[in-house]
């Protein structure tokens, strides 16, 4: 009979200091962020060293960790200053850096002693010998390539004791991470230095040249009869239905993709995965997937979801072809500031326009939920209003069930 098992870490993305706090409040055991240099998300809200320090302090106060992604593949002109960068990261109290370029790994280890290093998925580690190579170099953890399956992880676990981190949710590269320079060649943007133009999601003409260079288009047609161009776009990953497999395979850290994603996404996904992992590890024998978790993830989904390579090589259903299914789309409309149990009034700071008649949903850490319609609405001067149209506007209205400060409010977007 299964008894309580080791609790793997749920690792959430945090593009900003606000998202860092939200991710931790919503159950993440660790977050990963970017610095001002050496990261692959040049457009994410990256952290200054001061923000790293306050973020690390907040995380440590809550028993969580913070990692800094510094996973570019450096060119000659990127090397100067790397040692100083890693020392400042270490001195900010960051728990580890996530690196892929061997030269930067060496720099971090030799010039910032004490700073733990994790191998980024950009290095596409796909076998146990590779994991052992990097452990011998002094790395604490390896983030696996997304091409690795559950059975392979189990086998790796028998050959290595380095920590294993694996992606469980979010967008995926269609190619081996790091082994794609489509963006460099098609858009003059370096995919391995934070400039990826996502050219894999373009629609391409497929053709051959059968007669001395004469072009012959090979146009296929989808099930709807419409011409369908060639594309390499992957659907997103979701492993919420397979938490036991991941834990039992020996994954130490379950990683959620998305440093560019919203507070709404980060809070929802961290909440779901941390709840599922906690419940499984507490009582594996009686664990059951709660369909509400799956529903919750669909509310923040941007594409259809799949299990990637975990159970075999992805077929055409794991790629975006043809008409996309219309996904439920929810907007993040506010954050709870206060709740008065006597008057049943909730005070909310607005993040997106909402108002009377809207069906809204409160959700908070530990997967608390409450859905209701907005039946009344008042501004800060207690004047009755129909809608809350202003960003950061503070309003209050009747809420039938108690909610907590820090809970979020979402509403289904009107198409």
């Amino acid at each position, binding site marked *: 009979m299964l008894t309580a098992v080791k609790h793997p870490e749920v690792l959430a993305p945090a593009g900003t200091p606000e998202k860092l706090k939200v991710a931790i409040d919503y159950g993440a055991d660790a977050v990963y962020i970017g610095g001002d240099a050496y990261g692959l998300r040049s457009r994410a809200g990256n952290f200054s060293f001061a923000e790293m320090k306050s973020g690390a302090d907040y995380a440590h106060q809550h028993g969580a960790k913070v990692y800094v992604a510094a996973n570019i593949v450096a060119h000659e002109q990127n090397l100067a200053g790397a040692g100083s960068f890693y020392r400042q990261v270490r001195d900010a109290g960051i728990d580890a850096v996530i690196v892929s370029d061997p030269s930067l790994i060496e720099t971090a280890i030799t010039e910032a002693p004490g700073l733990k290093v994790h191998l980024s998925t950009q290095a596409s580690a796909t076998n146990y010998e*590779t994991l052992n190579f990097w452990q011998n170099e002094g790395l604490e953890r390896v983030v696996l390539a997304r091409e690795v399956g559950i059975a392979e992880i189990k086998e790796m676990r028998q050959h290595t004791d380095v920590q294993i981190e694996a992606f469980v949710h979010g967008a995926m590269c269609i190619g081996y991470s790091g082994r794609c320079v489509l963006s460099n060649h098609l858009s003059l943007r370096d995919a391995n230095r934070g400039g990826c133009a996502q050219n894999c999601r373009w629609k391409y003409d497929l053709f051959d040249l059968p007669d001395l260079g004469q072009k012959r288009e090979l146009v296929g047609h989808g099930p709807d009869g419409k011409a369908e161009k*060639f594309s390499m776009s992957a659907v997103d990953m979701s492993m919420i239905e397979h938490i036991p497999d991941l834990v039992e395979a020996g994954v130490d850290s379950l990683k959620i993709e998305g440093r560019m994603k919203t507070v709404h996404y980060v809070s929802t996904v961290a909440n779901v995965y941390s709840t599922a992992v906690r419940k499984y590890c507490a009582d594996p024998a009686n664990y059951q997937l709660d369909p509400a978790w799956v529903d919750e993830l669909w509310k923040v989904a941007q594409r259809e979801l799949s299990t990637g390579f975990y159970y075999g090589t*992805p077929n055409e259903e794991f790629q975006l072809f043809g008409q996309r299914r219309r996904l439920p789309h929810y907007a993040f409309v506010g954050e709870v500031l206060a709740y008065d149990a006597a008057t049943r009034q909730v005070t909310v700071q607005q993040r997106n326009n909402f108002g009377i008649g809207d069906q809204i949903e409160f959700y908070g850490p530990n997967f608390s939920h409450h859905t209701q319609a907005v039946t009344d609405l008042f501004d800060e001067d207690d004047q009755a209003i129909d809608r809350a149209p202003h960003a950061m506007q503070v309003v209050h209205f009747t809420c039938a069930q108690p909610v907590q400060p820090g809970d979020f409010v979402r509403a289904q977007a009107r198409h």
Partner: protein
Amino acid sequence: MSELVTTVSSYQQAAAVIAAGADRLYLGEDEFGLRLPHSFAREELAAIVTLAHQEQKKVTVAANAIFHNDRIAKIDEYFRFLAAIGVDEVSIGDPGAINVLRRAQLNLPYLYDAADLVTSSRQINFWGKHGAHAAVLAHEVPYQEMMPLSQKVTIPVEVTVYGAIVIHQSGRPLLDNYSNFVQEHLDRTDRQRGLFIATPHHDETHYSIYEDRNGTHIFANNDLDLLPDLPKLWDLGLRRWKLDGLFADEATFPQVVAAFAQARALLAAGTATAADLAVLDQTVQQLQPAGRGLDNGFFDLDPDEVK
């Protein structure tokens, strides 16, 4: 010291490229090596090693695949076979294979080749400290970056000077997946099928694409031709040059090798002129297969142009 490294697609071609001036042959089998003109059986490989050594030439065998557990478990035995037949070098792109090679303690040097990932002198020197005796420079490193890099490297650097440039490797069968979705099956998706993709609004582009046991591979719009730029590489001391005949015409590829060998001879003699090189380059251009262009890739790019 300079070295012309060329791919090989058959025993006959091996003899021809040696005659054309190649110093080192590059070949292997696709269970272990990536994007090879031919997947050689072991007895074929051994015969070519014998041939090369008779001619005082060297052989590098490709073991640069991204290995999963199933194949990393086979690499020790493969390395032992390669060492036993006297192979001079293996190319490796997966650090796990380096782990295995170290443990085996064979007389088998390795060349580090991780496609687009080797972009700085410090990384090259990292692999040098880990036993590599040479490393392959990414095609995305422009000449302006090669200049400082060449001053700092501690091991020889191989630069591709001719051939197809890979720009994407996926573990997914992207062509099969598309074919299955549209229910209009492509008869073949291998390299010989000759498939291309064009980018949106640029019908004139032609990126080669094919599938094999290592996944789906996509190549740059034009093949690389650095023959006119060889003096710059020569002056930097980057003199290990690779010619990749993956998409070249099998029969005429040795003539391409010969053109580069003549250019190298002129440079070694100190007599190379731009006019001489232009004539040799004309040969290379004339031998280029129909439908495949040539350019010098990222060589002339200002590094600041790449965002």
